[in-house]
């Protein structure tokens, strides 16, 4: 633990992390600006599903109507919001845990500028209805090439943070021989390692297939190869979103709740398992695809069940840490200790209710991964219901919860209203709970995802009842979002100047890193294991697709 390292030298001065603080602030600001626009699109969608069409008045801003709005919703919420927030949060947490600035501040700024340039490039076709291809941009749908180039730059920017982290950790290890990498820094670098390996898929898709094709350098492409490379990244991206929330749940929430982390070694093991198992499972998103053998789909399904294990370890470790905190606060009984957690703190409330909904998201995710059971739910609104619990709640609400302490920490201004923060968290819980439940129900009754249901001729009568309640949930979420943005704007402009800015306290562990096998810190070993599993699970399929592909499928603009 960082705190242990710091305590060993009680007079250690806090390192100057002004660059990292600025970068965290800028990235998180961009992230929430994107979420505001992306989230608003969601409100238009759920109203349209119930026959209230706001796309006509919005036409000057949103010429592509529902499908452009849906693309904006997906791209801004799950690609822009998540990536910028994560890069900002990990930059700062990593440096803070090592009590050391990043090795190269120039590289740190370059990370931001490459990502921002990419975002601006991609935004041009996105906002002018020239990239209405959803965040999955499956060829032969063909967007303006700036969209692909921009998104590729955002991804490439994130790689620079990994380079910086490796340089920084190596320097730290040289200065602290024999010491274990502090848990938050360990988790941050493992997350970025996993992500960088995972993005080989989408980067290859962009660089070798989609960008040359969208520029007109080649006449055709191969949609199955593109999909396979997309999902190579598209499944592990969910762990890229989740692991930063886990970092908060493991290393910050236990301390904020008044307790300790239950087990540091178990946390390290679960992150190493995520590094190894997140990637060689992407084809469970392609169960319904032709052109891929059912045996490889089955292998990926089996490995997906494997990655369920570190999720359960996380669940156990985090809940055990919370139980310890609850009991330290005077809680008793089997479950009554839950009431002794500091529910009045918005950062705690938000993350605890995020965890509760995440349990259900995990369960519906198991259904998605379950090979033939997937046929019941594939591409129905069940899937949208599922990921609104995972990325839409476990990740997004945790990220909001983190800002309830991080924004005061970074700006030196007290949160404008703590009770509004608590109310915001619970409203999100109720709104998303309703919305997501009814989206799952609709999916089981055959409602397709991504379809402009308000204009669909095949809407079944029984769907209308569920659509109404999904809308109620969506509107409650909208109120929650207004509370969040109001609180943040007031904090930034009117928040009371704090006399003393609270420092970050990382949780100490009941069972510390000294109990963890040393090999867990040897990242090269685990990267090698991950690479071997990826080659085994992907190479035969990719070779098969490339050897039979004709690369002659032309692009289409169908919107």
């Amino acid at each position, binding site marked *: 633990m960082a705190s242990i390292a710091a305590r060993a030298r009680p007079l250690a001065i806090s390192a100057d992390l002004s660059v990292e603080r600025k970068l965290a602030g800028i990235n998180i600001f961009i992230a929430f600006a994107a979420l505001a626009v992306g989230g608003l699109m969601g409100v238009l969608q759920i109203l349209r599903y119930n026959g209230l069409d706001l796309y006509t008045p919005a036409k000057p801003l949103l010429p592509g109507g529902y499908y452009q709005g*849906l693309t904006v919703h997906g791209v801004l919420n799950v690609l822009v919001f998540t990536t910028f927030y994560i890069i900002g949060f990990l930059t700062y947490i990593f440096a803070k845990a090592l009590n050391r600035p990043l090795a190269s501040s120039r590289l740190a700024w370059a990370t931001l500028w490459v990502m921002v340039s990419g975002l601006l490039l991609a935004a041009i076709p996105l906002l002018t209805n020239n990239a209405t291809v959803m965040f999955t941009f499956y060829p032969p749908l063909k967007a303006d090439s700036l969209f692909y180039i921009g998104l590729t730059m955002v991804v490439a920017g994130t790689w620079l943070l990994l380079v910086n982290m490796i340089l920084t950790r190596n320097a730290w290890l040289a200065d602290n021989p024999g010491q274990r990498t502090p848990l938050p820094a360990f988790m941050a670098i493992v997350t970025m390692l996993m992500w960088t390996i995972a993005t080989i898929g989408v980067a290859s898709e962009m660089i070798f297939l989609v960008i040359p094709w969208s520029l007109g350098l080649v006449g055709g492409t191969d949609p199955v190869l593109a999909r396979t490379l997309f999902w190579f990244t598209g499944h592990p991206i969910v762990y890229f979103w989740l692991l930063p929330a886990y970092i908060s749940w493991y290393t910050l929430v236990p301390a904020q709740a008044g307790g300790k982390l239950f087990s540091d070694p178990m946390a390290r093991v679960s992150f190493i398992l995520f590094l190894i198992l997140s990637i060689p499972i992407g084809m469970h998103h392609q169960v319904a695809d032709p052109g891929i053998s059912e045996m490889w789909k089955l292998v990926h399904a089996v490995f997906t069940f494997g990655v369920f294990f570190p999720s359960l370890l996380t669940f156990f470790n985090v809940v055990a840490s919370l139980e310890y905190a609850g009991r330290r606060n005077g809680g008793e009984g089997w479950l009554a200790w839950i009431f002794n957690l500091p529910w009045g703190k918005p950062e705690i409330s938000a993350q605890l209710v995020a965890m509760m909904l995440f349990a259900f998201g995990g369960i519906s995710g*198991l259904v998605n991964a379950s090979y033939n059971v997937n046929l019941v739910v594939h591409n129905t609104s069940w899937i949208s219901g599922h990921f609104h619990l995972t990325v839409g709640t476990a990740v997004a609400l945790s990220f909001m919860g983190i800002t309830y302490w991080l924004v005061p920490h970074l700006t030196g201004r007290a949160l404008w209203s703590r009770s509004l923060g608590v109310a915001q968290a619970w409203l999100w819980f109720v709104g998303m709970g309703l919305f997501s439940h009814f989206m799952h129900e609709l999916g089981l009754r055959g409602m*397709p995802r*991504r379809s402009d249901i308000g204009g669909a001729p095949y809407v079944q009568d029984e769907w209308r009842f569920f659509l109404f309640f999904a809308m109620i949930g969506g509107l409650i979420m909208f109120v929650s979002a207004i509370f969040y943005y109001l609180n943040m704007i007031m904090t930034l402009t009117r928040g009371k100047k704090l006399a003393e800015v609270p420092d970050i306290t990382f949780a100490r562990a*009941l069972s510390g890193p000294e109990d963890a096998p040393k090999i867990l810190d040897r990242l090269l070993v685990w990267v090698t294991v991950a690479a071997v599993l990826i080659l085994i699970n992907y190479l035969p399929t990719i070779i098969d697709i490339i050897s039979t592909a004709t690369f*002659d499928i032309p692009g*289409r603009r169908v919107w």
Partner: protein
Amino acid sequence: MKDKKFISYLFEVAWILPSVAIPVSMMVAILVTAFAVGVRVPTSAGRVSVSAVVAGTDATFSQTGLREIAPGRYEAIMLAQTFMYTPNTIEIPAGSKVTFVLTSKDVIHGFKIEGVPVNVMVIPGQVSRVTATFDKPGEYLIVCHEYCGAGHHVMFGKVIVN
């Protein structure tokens, strides 16, 4: 509270064992339904030339429609394109077993039939082949469930079982 008392191996084992047992037993259930009951997922069914399909010169897809290949056994050759299936309606007697053979003329489409385990992507250049048995009379809704452009939501079809 004593920290040592809180950490107990029994506590950890009591969690780790179910954490292994739950996914393993679910996986076994899936394997049984797939290979003993026979609920399989789409697999490779070969490639096809998009230009030949569009030109109407492909041997299989130049003749779309339903044909009986054995008593009670049918084959439906279908094309997906923005924003329709050809043919759009399949009519069969109850108890029929139908193999759907599809491809796309343009972008990726979806093909899901409500009420039977048919759910497959229809990708240009690829053949999708799925089979289902229709026991109960009635209308089965076919929906395109992959975004295929501005008219995605009007793309649907029907299986009518008499």
